[in-house]
């Protein structure tokens, strides 16, 4: 079994933006939309990074480089499909419809960031690496049992694929033949550990062989390839072909989080060698070469992205905290237990009195 040939890297445009595959079934309009989103999400990411540096938000996990790998997935899903994301998957969520200011609220440590919009089927972002993979198995199973045709998608990283839960989730999904797609975003790093120190295989997709499910490896920096792959795959999975594992090969261009300093463990040469083309410049080159968009379009998109992002920042910063603090007691159980009621009262009382929070 040669993993590189069994699981070839699917690609439609290459690192220089040259067409190397078939994009006939993806419209120009679709590409324009993708480009707009790629730029908007990149703008948001950079804005958030700066806001953290200015102390306006807390710890933040940047996604630069991974926008295409996420947009391509989200664009292929139906609005009632379940998404089980991790902390770095806001691009997919935002594309799917979660308001942008959510990600900022999240990094501000605002409780409301967990309350996903009611017209979507999105779980709160997962902090426990790998914790959400089994939820996708269960959600897809629930869909099947109830005769729905929703599918469930778990998004997680290369690091997460080492967790025991990864194995248990894929095995159970395969045994129960549930409509779940497991998307491992191989961004080459789990914080400081490169993927070749996490596993001894050239691909993650080959793990599909352990469960007798479909395994696919796609260039995650090629939004067209990702989109095509998922558009076709979600259809098969929805129709009952069983679960699938997709490895989107991408690259974490930035730090792990704002608390991380990647210069400690990787060099610019590492980055250059492994990152295989920024998804935005790639698509832009293609769009330019094919004359699908021209300079003024790009400038307009850049400008609109700023406006959109600024608007999200305003919404986030204007979002009221109170009375959210007290509500922590309200979301432990469906109804307040007697001890929680007592504690809630004490807590509120202290808030009113303005508790001393000095720590010596």
């Amino acid at each position: 079994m040669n993993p590189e040939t069994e699981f070839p890297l699917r690609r439609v445009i290459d690192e220089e933006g040259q067409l190397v595959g078939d994009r006939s079934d993806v419209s120009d309009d679709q590409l324009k939309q993708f480009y707009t989103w790629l730029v908007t999400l990149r703008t948001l990411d950079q804005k958030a990074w700066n806001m953290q540096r200015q102390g306006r938000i807390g710890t933040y996990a940047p996604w630069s480089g991974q926008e295409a790998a996420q947009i391509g997935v989200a664009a292929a899903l139906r609005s009632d499909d379940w998404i089980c994301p991790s902390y770095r998957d806001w691009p997919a969520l935002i594309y799917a419809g979660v308001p942008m200011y959510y990600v900022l609220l999240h990094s501000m440590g605002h409780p409301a960031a967990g309350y996903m919009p009611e017209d979507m089927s999105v779980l709160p972002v997962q902090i426990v690496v790998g914790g959400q993979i089994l939820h996708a198995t269960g959600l897809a199973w629930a869909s099947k049992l109830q005769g729905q045709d929703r599918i469930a998608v778990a998004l997680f990283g290369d690091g997460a694929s080492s967790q025991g839960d990864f194995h248990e989730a894929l095995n159970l999904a395969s045994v129960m033949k549930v409509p779940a797609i497991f998307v491992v975003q191989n961004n080459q790093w789990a914080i400081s550990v490169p993927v070749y120190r996490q596993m001894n295989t050239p691909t993650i997709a080959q793990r599909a062989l352990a469960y007798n499910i479909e395994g696919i490896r796609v260039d995650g920096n090629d939004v067209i390839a990702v989109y095509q792959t998922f558009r076709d795959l979600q259809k098969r999975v929805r129709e009952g072909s069983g679960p699938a594992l997709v490895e989107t090969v991408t690259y974490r261009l930035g730090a792990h989080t704002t608390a991380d300093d990647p210069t400690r463990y990787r060099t610019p040469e590492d980055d250059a060698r492994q990152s295989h083309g920024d998804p935005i410049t790639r698509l832009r080159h293609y769009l330019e070469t094919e004359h699908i968009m021209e300079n003024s379009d790009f400038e307009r998109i850049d400008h609109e992205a700023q406006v959109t992002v600024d608007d999200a920042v305003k919404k986030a910063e204007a979002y009221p905290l109170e009375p959210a603090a007290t509500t922590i007691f309200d979301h432990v159980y469906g109804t307040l237990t007697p001890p929680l009621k007592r504690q809630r009262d004490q807590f509120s009382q202290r808030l009113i009195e303005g508790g001393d929070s000095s720590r010596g």
Partner: protein
Amino acid sequence: MAKMTMIQALNQAMGLAMAENPKVMVLGEDVGRDGGVFRATEGLYERFGAERVVDTPLAESSIIGSAVGLAIGGMRPIAEIQFLGFIYETMDQIETQASRMRFRSQSRYHVPLVIRSPYGGGVRTPEIHSDSLEALFVHTPGIKVVTPSTPYDAKGLLLAAIQDPDPVLFMEPIPLYRAMREEVPDNWYEIPLGKAQIRNPGEDITIIAWGPMVPVAEACAKQATREQISAEVIDLRTLSPLDEETVITSVEKTGRAVIVHEAVGTGGLGGEVTAIIQEHAFLSLQAPILRVTGYDTPYPVSSVEDLWRPDVARVLEAVHRSIHY
């Protein structure tokens, strides 16, 4: 109404719930064709089919983790962990996932999940099969912890747990599965979670127990009567949230308390109950609150287990120490 054992009562409860609500399903190891290693799910596979009574692969984390998804996705899963000692395999899914999904999502999602699991010793099981681990879960916000001591309670509490909108760890005392039969109504009834029960009223001392230790406490109370000691026995039934009121009221009356649990003593739930009592009934206390528990060793091999588990003699000794303090 028929006389039945606890295991039969549990079985009946699940059967009722599944008949009543097509979303209720059972999943776990050997719960299907085999009917569970203790026969708790016997007959359910035949009645409700392989889709709703599911033999899972042998992977506890996947049982709970997928059940979280099932619950959020609209089902009402009853998951079985074959023995409580194996729940460690799924701690992350219980503690950071099932128990926190409501909190994390600000009640956008909640997880109506019952985790049934047998525990408790005295029946010569292999290593890890007997461990009493309630303390780990009582310390976890977002999950309730229940343990019955009679067939009647078992059914009523399990039905309440199944109706509960939040995760409930339902701990079933192995030594009581078939220890007694009692009248159990055939129909649906619920015993509210969070309510203890006074199993034996008394005046001189309060003995607090749960699960497998309730009969030990009752036997001790009976023996104490012969010595003119009137012991009130409380079965907590729900360990989280705790029925503080019943406990405090009792100790305010008796002035003395002995807590009995089979779990390892240090760090066990006895400490919590002690802390609550002494905080709220301080002035009533005539003697220190005493704990009779498993020793601070792992649950031992079966040739030693009877010496390790709290028994009537040890509880009585504590009663004497308290009374003669």
